[in-house]
C-alpha cells in the first residue's frame, strides 16, 4: 500500500519545504518515501508542484486521478491540481488567493467553487494563523501540523522555534479537518 500526496502552491510559499517535512516525518515513522521536486526557473510567483508518495513505493510521480490528498497552499492552485484527486481523495486548501496576472479573484468565490465541486475538501486558515504568528512564512508549518494529524505522522525531526509553534497550531486545527 502507498499513500500519494500532491502539494501545490505559488513560488515563495515554501511548498518544497513542506513536502520535505512531511517526507521526513514519514521516514521517521518507518515508511519508504519518494518526493518528486520540480526545479526550473527560480522565479517567484509561478505555480509549484511537488509529489510525495510513502509506503510501498517505487515511482515518485503521482498520476492524474491518483492522489489520496491534494494539499494546496493557495486556493487557485488547488483548482489546477484538482485533476490529480483520486475518487474519494481529500483536497486540503489554505484559505488564501495570490492574484494571478490579469484578473482579480476573491477568496470566497474560489472557496465556494471548491466546496460546490463535490470532492471531499477541507479549507483551512493557514495564512491567517501564520500572520498571527508574525509572518506569512509560517503558513507551510501550520499546514504541516494539519497534515501530521490527517496522515497520522509525527512531527518531523529538526523543526524549531516559531515553526514548532506553527506546527502545534496546525495540529490542533487538523482535528476539525477530519471528515
Amino acid at each position, binding site marked *: 500500500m502507498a499513500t500519494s500526496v500532491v502539494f501545490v502552491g505559488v513560488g515563495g510559499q515554501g511548498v518544497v519545504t513542506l513536502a520535505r517535512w512531511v517526507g521526513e516525518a514519514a521516514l521517521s515513522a518507518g515508511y519508504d518515501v519518494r518526493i518528486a521536486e520540480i526545479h*526550473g526557473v*527560480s522565479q*517567484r510567483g509561478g505555480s509549484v508542484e511537488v509529489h510525495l508518495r510513502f509506503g510501498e513505493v517505487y515511482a515518485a510521480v503521482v498520476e492524474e486521478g491518483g492522489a489520496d490528498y491534494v494539499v494546496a497552499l493557495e486556493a487557485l492552485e488547488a483548482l489546477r491540481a*484538482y485533476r490529480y484527486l483520486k475518487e474519494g481523495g481529500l483536497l486540503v486548501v489554505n484559505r488564501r488567493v495570490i492574484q494571478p496576472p490579469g484578473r482579480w479573484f476573491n477568496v470566497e468565490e474560489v472557496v465556494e467553487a471548491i466546496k460546490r465541486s463535490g470532492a471531499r475538501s477541507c479549507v483551512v486558515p493557514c495564512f491567517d494563523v501564520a500572520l498571527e504568528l508574525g509572518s506569512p512564512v509560517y503558513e507551510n508549518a501550520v499546514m504541516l501540523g494539519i497534515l501530521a494529524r490527517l496522515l497520522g505522522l509525527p512531527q518531523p525531526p529538526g523543526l524549531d522555534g516559531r515553526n514548532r509553534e506553527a506546527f502545534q497550531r496546525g495540529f490542533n486545527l487538523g482535528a476539525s479537518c477530519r471528515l
Partner: protein
Amino acid sequence: MKSLLLGNEAIAYGVLAAGVAVAASYPGTPATEILETLERFKDRFVTWATNEKTAFELAYGAAVAGARSLVSMKHVGLNVAADPLHSSAYTGVEGGLLIAVADDPWMHSSQNEQDSRWYGLQSYIPVLEPSDPAEAYTMAKEGLSLSERLRHPVLLRSVTRVSHVRAPVEVEPPAPPRWGSFRRDPERLCLVPANARRRRAELVEKWRRVEETAAGYVWTEGEGDVVVVAAGVAYTYVKEALRRLRTEAKVVKLGMSVPVPPKVADLVGQSAVVVEEGDPVVEMQLRALGVRTAGKLDGFFPRYGELDVGRVAAGLAKALGIAYKPPTPPRPPMEPPPRPPALCPGCPHMGTFYVLKIATAGLNPVWSGDIGCYSLGVNMEQQDVITHMGSSLGLGLGIAVASRRFVVATVGDSTFFHSSLPQLVNLISSSVPILVVVMDNSYTAMTGGQPSPSRVTPVEKLTEALGIPTFVIDPARIKESVEAVKRAVEVVKQGRPAVVVSKRPCTLVALRRARAAGVEVPKYWVDVDKCVGCSLCYGLLRCSAIAPRGDRKAYIDPALCTGCGMCAEVCPTGAIKGERERWLEIWRQA
C-alpha cells in the same frame, strides 16, 4: 542512518565516498545540485566553470593526470562538451573520470529533450543508468572506480525523476581525495592522426571488454512467461505497473544501458517488452542482438515526454493483451487562471526590458534571445528567437546580415561568458551593427544563483578592451537608463555594434542577503486617489507584484513587493510611493 537525499545529492556523496578530488560543472537544471553539494567539501578542488566544455576539459585533464574526477552537466550541456568527450574515449584516463549527465524528458526547464545515451554509443563510453537516488549513490561510487579500472571515462545518465527525487539513501563518509601525478605518454595522449588511428582500433577492441563489464550490471527478478526489460527510472514504473495489472513477469533490469551486453539476449530469450525513458536506445541494441521487442519502436510507449505508472501500465497492457482501464482525472469545478512564468517582482531584467522597449520604440527590432531567466521576455513580446546557450549573438548576427533589421541581442552575464565571447569578437571583426545587451545580474540566477565570472571580470572592462562602444546602465533607474540606451541605439544606427551592460544583482540573492543582515526592504504602495488606471506598471513594466483591481487601478501586494521602485519611476501621475535609495545601494553590493 538513512536520510532523504535528492538523486543529485546522492551522486555527489557517491563520488565523495570514492575519493573524488576534482569536480567541475556549469549549472543547469536538473543537474545543478551535484556540484552544489560537492562545493561544501573544501578539501577537494570543486569549481563552476565558464561552460560545459571547459568543465569537461578540467576534469578530463585531472583524470589524465591520475586524479579521481567528476564533471556534471545537463543533457544539452553535453553537446557543448561533445568535442573533448569523444577524444577522452581515445586517450582513456589514468584516474577515474565520471561524467554525470542529467536528462530532462518533457523539458521541464530545457529547450529540447535529448537522450544522452546516444553519446555513449557514439563516443564508445559506457553508460550507467540508476533508477532511484539510492542507486544513483551506488553507481556514482562504483562508476568512478570502474572508470579507473577500465582506464576509460564512464557516463552516468540521470533523468529529472532521479536527479530531483528525494528518497532514503544510506551514505558512507567521504573517502580522502585521490590526487594524481602526470606521466608523459604522448603516443596515447597526443591525438595526431598516426596515434589516433591506433587508438581507434584499440577503442573498438576495448568495447568488447566493456560489454563483459556491462554483463555485471544485469539483474533479474520475478518469474513468468513474459519478459520485461527495464532500464533506469523505467524500472520503478514497471514494478508498480505490473502490480496494478496483477501480472507476473520476469523483469530484467539493466543498470548499464550502453552497451547492452550480448549475454542479455540469452537471459531474455526470443522476445521482450522494453521500457526505457527517452529514445529506444536499449530496444535498438536488443533488436541488433536478434531479440523481438515491443517498446517504443512500434509505439507501445510514447517517444516523447516522461513515462509514468499510467503510461507504462497502458503500454504493458497493450503489448501483453491485458484489458486495462486507466483512472479518469476529475475536472475542476472552475477553470484555474493561467499563472504564466514571469520575471520575479523587482527583477532587474524587468527594468532592462522596459528600458529597451522605450529606447527602441519605432525601430521594430528583432529580439534575439538566449537561455536564462530573461527567456521570460518571451511573455513581453521581447524575444523572437531563443534556441540554445549563446544563440542571441550568434543567430542575431546572421539575422542582421540577412534581413538588415535592427537586432537587439539580449544575453545574461553567465551565458555571455559561457558561449558569447568568441561571437562578440566575431561581431566586431565582421563589423555588423547590432545592439548587444548584457543583462548582468552577477549570478547564474536561473539555476538558483551560482556566482558568475562577471563578479571578478567586469563585462564592461572586457567589451571596452575589445574596442566596442559600451554603455553601462542600472536598470532600476529607468529614466537615466532610457537616455543611455538611446545613445547606444544611435551608435548602431550609424553602422557600428554597441554594447549595453545592464548591471544590478539578482533580486532573490539581494533579498536573501538583506534578510541575513536584518536590512528592512521598503514596500511600495499606490495612492488610489492619484492612480488613473493607465496600466503602465502592471501592463507595460509587467511587475508581477502589481495587479489591476476591478477598477483597473493598481494594487501592489506587500508580500511580493521587493522595493525596487521601478513602478514609481514609470508611473506618470506619481501615484506610486515608497523610499528606496538606501536599499538600492545595499542591493547593488549583493
